[in-house]
């Protein structure tokens, strides 16, 4: 295991090492210590390595991740795993706003709560939140799944496209064009697989599903009150 002390090693040097790992590298396990809320940590990774971050971390941790597994043993700031392409990011604590923003693939697991706008503009990422999510989560969500084991704040799924939302607890309110949808056996099975992948012990039958009514897909003046 490579242990990197970020109080001694500049972030730029860490990334130079991580970005230049050969495809067949055997340096697959990394541990970052003394991270002290560093921003933009472990970003732009492209290899199937595993990075464990010990301590609380700042904005955009694991941003644009591809292939790598990043585990944050602490809380994290805004935009964790933003625009993630693939791989897995796991937050052992809580995450601030815009978690998984515009993510295009991969799995983001937040074991605690997530702040506002969780999964904003998500484009294929799967996000599983063990706690609750804040207001405007999945705003303009295009694809992928947002699973919330706790409650969801106001205006969930506002202006939603094709992202699928599953909430076990209460939803404060639904946003424009977001409606409850039937939880079919297909959805139960799919959600069950996702919960298992995320390591969450929950019964998929306890969740409600929400999705787009698709009424705002084409602008029409009759819908102007919805905007």
């Amino acid at each position, binding site marked *: 295991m490579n242990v990197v002390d970020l109080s001694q090693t500049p972030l730029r040097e860490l990334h130079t090492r991580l970005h230049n790992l050969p495809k067949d590298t055997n340096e697959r396990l990394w541990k970052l210590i003394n991270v002290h809320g560093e*921003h933009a940590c472990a970003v732009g990774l492209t290899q199937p390595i595993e990075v464990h971050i010990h301590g609380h971390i700042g904005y955009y941790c694991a941003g*644009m991740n591809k292939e790598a597994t990043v585990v944050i043993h602490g809380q994290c700031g805004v935009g964790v795993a933003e*625009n993630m392409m693939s791989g897995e990011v796991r937050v052992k604590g809580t995450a601030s706003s815009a978690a998984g923003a515009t993510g*295009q693939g991969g799995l983001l697991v937040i074991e605690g709560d997530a702040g506002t706008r969780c999964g904003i503009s998500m484009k294929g990422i799967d996000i599983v939140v063990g706690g609750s999510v804040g207001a405007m989560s999945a705003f303009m969500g295009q694809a992928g799944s947002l699973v919330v084991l706790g409650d969801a704040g106001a205006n969930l799924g506002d202006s939603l496209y094709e992202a699928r939302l599953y909430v076990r607890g209460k939803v404060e309110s639904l946003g424009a064009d977001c409606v409850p949808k039937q939880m079919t056996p297909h959805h139960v099975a799919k959600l069950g697989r996702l919960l298992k992948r995320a390591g969450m012990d929950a019964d998929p039958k306890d969740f409600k599903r929400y999705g787009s009514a698709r009424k705002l897909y084409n602008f029409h003046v009759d819908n102007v009150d919805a905007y």
Partner: protein
Amino acid sequence: MSSTPFYTPPRWSATFDAHSIAEIHRAAQTGIYDIRGGGAKRKVPHFDDLLFLGASVSRYPLEGYREKCGTDVVLGTRFAKKPIHLKIPVTIAGMSFGSLSGNAKDALGRGATQMGTSTTTGDGGMTQEERKSSKTLVYQLLPSRYGMNPDDLRKADAIEVVVGQGAKPGGGGMLLGMKITERVAKMRTLPVGIDQRSACRHPDWTGPDDLTIKIQELREITDWEKPIYVKVGATRPYYDVALAVKAGADVVVLDGMQGGTAATQDVFIEHVGIPILAAIRPAVQALQDLDMHRKVQLIVSGGIRNGADVAKALAMGADAVAIGTAALVALGDNDPHWEEEYKKLGTTAGCYDDWHEGRDPAGITTQDPELSKRLDPVKAGHRLANYLAVLTMETQIIARACGKSHVHNLEPDDLVALTVEAAAMAGVPLAGTNWIPGRNGM
């Protein structure tokens, strides 16, 4: 005395003019605002309101056909390991595949590359074709993040964080369903045929402090190689430029209200934002106050048409200009060759601006495969290269006449204004006087 009965000829109202009345009728009939492409069409103070003084007894000109007048520009010298070197100070502004056809994007790349300058992606990501045809390609990070891909980020030569654009500062975008073909939809992860909205603000940052961290992230992802631009629509240029510099930008792109859009409400285009003429001096002042003029480069855009416009922008303190609408016209947009078809669309060559409808007879602002075929990317690229060459030569002609051995040596002292408004906005004297309105409390 005439025996003809006395009568008052019809008189148009200056307030309710023909256009206003037609718009009221249209709104009343349809119940929806007008959407169109392009930039502000109303007359606003512009570069035409400035003149160069040229050489005189106190200034020594350079020989037009013999003496060297440099045009190269280096962008991104502040932090980037690999700044961009361009042969000419004219770049191609961001325009998306989706709003433009694949052939149009290809042609832009070919023309720009031929002249040693850069092109820019747009909303919807980078296409393989434009990466191939553009030697120097700037990759935009937009609020929508449609097609955003870290691999493309690494393939780019520079990254442009788009905060806003001159045609619609503070507004998002709309690509109407008729242009959301299967390929465009796939690139943007959207269903085919829907009206695609582009967000007006970034999903994961708000304000200059967050922007600082976002720029840091982009630098870390790309190992500090790429110049990072920040593009703003011209509204509060002094503060926006200062904040972009504070956030760590290598280059600031400032787009005036005459800058084009693929599709926006007409009322937005015509009434939000300020002309580029009014925006450059405050932007340069911000750079000077921070001791960053020429260290953070300034690219300005919005209504650049000829070499005189380029020279005036540079003289006011810009390092380069960007062209969008003019580049499309150079490719063949609004060409009288298609007049019969423009008539069928209810318009005429020179006025066509329904770019959002995807029915462009010239095959540029469309995704219709048959219309797109009309644009030969090789020929159109050559036309753009010709136009860029003319812009550059015209800029040099003026610079030499002002005694400058490089176009960047043009300065505000070379300029005067024809109107009080332009003098105040550009910060140069009214012609024939030494009066700069607004200076020294006057």
